[in-house]
């Protein structure tokens, strides 16, 4: 396990969308999958997970249905909607652009420009 990383402002929504895009999940499942995907290096405030989910559902990017969990309990499952998929794609592209630009800047060697 590497060093813990703080979550960048505004990236939680993107990560949730990504997590949900890999298959329907309940809230706790989103948390677990994000932990898995980041190798546990990302600190996610559990308390802010649900407001984010509600916000995304309100925006119509994800949809929720009540279903049964692995341990036979009633749970709310989230899935990506069509507009959520589009949004995720756009956000991903934006992020890639952004990170490559920032990485380019930060990796500049003195005297080269």
């Amino acid at each position, binding site marked *: 396990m590497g060093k813990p990383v703080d979550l960048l402002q505004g990236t939680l929504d993107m990560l949730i969308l990504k997590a949900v895009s890999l298959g329907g999940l309940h809230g706790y499942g989103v948390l677990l999958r994000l932990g898995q995907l980041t190798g546990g290096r990302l600190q996610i*405030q559990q*308390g802010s997970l649900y*407001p984010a989910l*509600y916000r995304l559902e309100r925006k119509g990017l994800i949809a929720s249905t009540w279903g049964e*969990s692995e341990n036979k*309990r*009633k749970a709310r499952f989230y899935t990506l909607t069509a507009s959520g998929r589009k949004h995720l794609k756009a956000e991903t592209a934006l992020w890639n652009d952004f990170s490559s630009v920032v990485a380019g800047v930060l990796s500049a060697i003195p005297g080269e420009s």
Partner: protein
Amino acid sequence: MRIGRRQQFEDDMDAELRFHIDSCVADLVRSGLTPEEAKRRARIEFGSLEASKDQCRQAWGLQRLDELRADLRLTFRTIRRSPGFAAVAILSLALGIGANTAIFGMFDAVMLRLLPVRDPGRLVFVQSAGTAGRDGPPYPCFELIRDRATSFEGVSAFSPSAMELTADRGRELARGLWVSGNLYQTLGVRPLIGRTLTASDDQTPGKGGPDGAVAVISRAYWQRRFGGDLAVVGRTIYLFEHAVTIVGVMPTETISLEPGRPIDIAVPMMLSDPVKLRDRTALWLLIVARLKPSVRMEQARAESGALFKAYIAGVRISEETRTRLFDHMDLAPAAKGLGGLRRQFSKPLSALMILAGLVLLAACVNITNLMLARAMARQRDFAVRLAIGAGRGRLIRQHLTESLALVGAGAALGIVLARLGQTALAAFFAEGNNRIVLDLSLNVRMLLFTLTVAVLSGLALGIVPAMRAARLDPAAGLHGGSRGIAGNRVSLRLGRALVVVQVTLSMVLLAGAGLFIRSLRELESVGLGFAREGILTMEVTPERRLFGSSEWLAMQTDILDRVRRIPGVRSVSWATMNPLSGRDRGAVLEVPGFVPRTEADKDIHLAAVSPEYFDTLGVPMLLGRGFSARDHGGAPKVAILNVTAARFYFGNANPIGLKVRFTNYPGRDLLYEVVGVVGDARHDSLREPPPRFIYLPIPQSVDRINRLALAARCSGDAIHFAAPVRRQIQSVRSTLLIANVSTMEKQIEQSLLRERLVAALSTTFGTVALVLACIGLYGILAYAVTRRTNEIGIRMALGATKSGVVWMVLREAFALAGAGIVIALPGVLALGQITKASLYGVEPVDPIAFASAAFLLLLFTALAAALPGRRASLLNPTSALRRE
């Protein structure tokens, strides 16, 4: 959001979060923790459950709703706690908003509403214009424009006229309209049942079209006269004794182009007087045309102007008549229909709109003042809320919610009041012979207006207390309690300023009411020149074939004899028109030795009267003799002038024995000898000075005698004689048509309709404002006395008398009222200037109106000050001092 759905949201959120925690706990237990330890860890990792929930609610958009609900709950609680305040606030708002809505409804109906026809914006009136005004061109000219002008999709003519109808043996006078067959195609109006008139119905003079003589009736007439019977289509009725088939029923609003003046029946032009249709100079039509979509007004004006010029070149008229009446062709927008009603009511309605606005303003100022007082009392409450972390935004919103709730209730009640008021207003207009029917039903524009007014007043109300709440310092608010903070002194000053504004507003309204009342009184007491009381009037029409016959003449004498024998009838007479009846007839007179400066100098009003006329109406005989039975058709022709005419034509010379000649009847030599001069009588309206008048004996009338007006002078209430007089008339001939039964007093009253309306409404508005100002004054004085309890105690302990204390309170009251009155002065002057045109016999700057308004205000100020003054004088110095 509904309560049930809201609960569902909470339950789901709880379940979801519980599942999360439980799953977390289960995983932790699996990793080897004890259940208790696992629970603790899970809780810690999750953080504050409640905060998370709150954020969820916010993310879902529920928080605002929750806050609004809390605001409303608090609002209702505070309103319930002070029902007196709420009642005054809601009632005064209801009055203000109601007055505005009601007046705006009238304003809308009269001034703003477009004709409910297809694309009214492209309709124009085509008028022959000159220095004497504008009017529709003669019928042959109309035909020319209809057939030749290419700028229009349709050109149509119409002309209102009283029509005599007989159906089911009942004869009556209906409000008719001669129309060119294509009128309803031009307007784009469809019939409700049956068919409308078409151009083919209007082809042959005296006959109509292929279906013969046809007509359409209005929905209102259909319902009134035929009980809404569907079988009315195809029925034959008689129009001046000619059979006419009803082919359709038209909407009442669009059967004519004059909103407010309902028409009963529309008949094709070709069935009207063929002589008039051929007349190349008679102005009796109104022409309405629809512009083609691509044609601009100027193009159409140029084209019809050229046609008109060609037409006029072929007509033999004097140069002066041409400039007066037939100078050029003009087009005027017709989207709102004929402007008679608009012209008549635009000024009074605009004045009333202003007054109603002032009333609403007064109501708002009053409520602001009350709210301010309450805000002071609630300062502590708000300070506590601020101190425990309420945002200032929330506080401001709380204030706005409160004021909007009050305004909402006020507006709802106001609409109810406006409806009631409008029913009364509609009844006010519907009186009398020339009744006006206004469509005052609620419409979107009216509701939007009310809504706008309400929201604006709500914001105006909330803003001052809200600003104060925003500036509130919690520490000071908590410390000081209700007394002794600088802020309170500021509030008191603000409160006083608001009271002064209230006094100013009510002063302006009261002085305005004073002006209108004085103007009405002046009009009511204007010298009429004839008797006001005890005169019964009605119009009697024989069948058309009797017009001008000796048989009709004999009947007239017979009727006079019989009516005269009714006990209580002192005198009875005939005339072609009675004063103030709205009827008129003009003639052109040539007087020896008189050189007219303009063509108009030769114009004179003309009436044919029976010998008893002047006596019955109480018009004094000043010179010479009256008419008598000896002035029959074969006798030498005689005439009587009124004083105005005698002076105008003869100066101070005695006109008796001189001869005058009517020149507007080509081919007839009409020479009359002046045998008498009578006093002047008002004719058109009470406002207009009496015009020049010439009277002829009925048997010697220049016109064929058809409809006549009867006047009977009775002892006691004249209207009681209507039934017996009617019986006597019908005993002479049962088919005589009797219409417009009224009394002179009633007609005078009706001719003052506008003035009475404005006077009554402005008085109501003034009273409301006065009461509001008194409430404001009382409030501020009572508050001042409470605040100064200590000071008053000290004064009394030092020997101030009770009357001295009362005087102290009164002095403050009068100072406030006096300031308001002085500040109102320019407002009163401005109002006088604005309403100048509606006033009669009163200068816009009227000291009496101003002084009485000021006196009334000071009187009520004293009344408002009495209670706080008394309370101050009854203070016990010892307990007052102990209060500190």
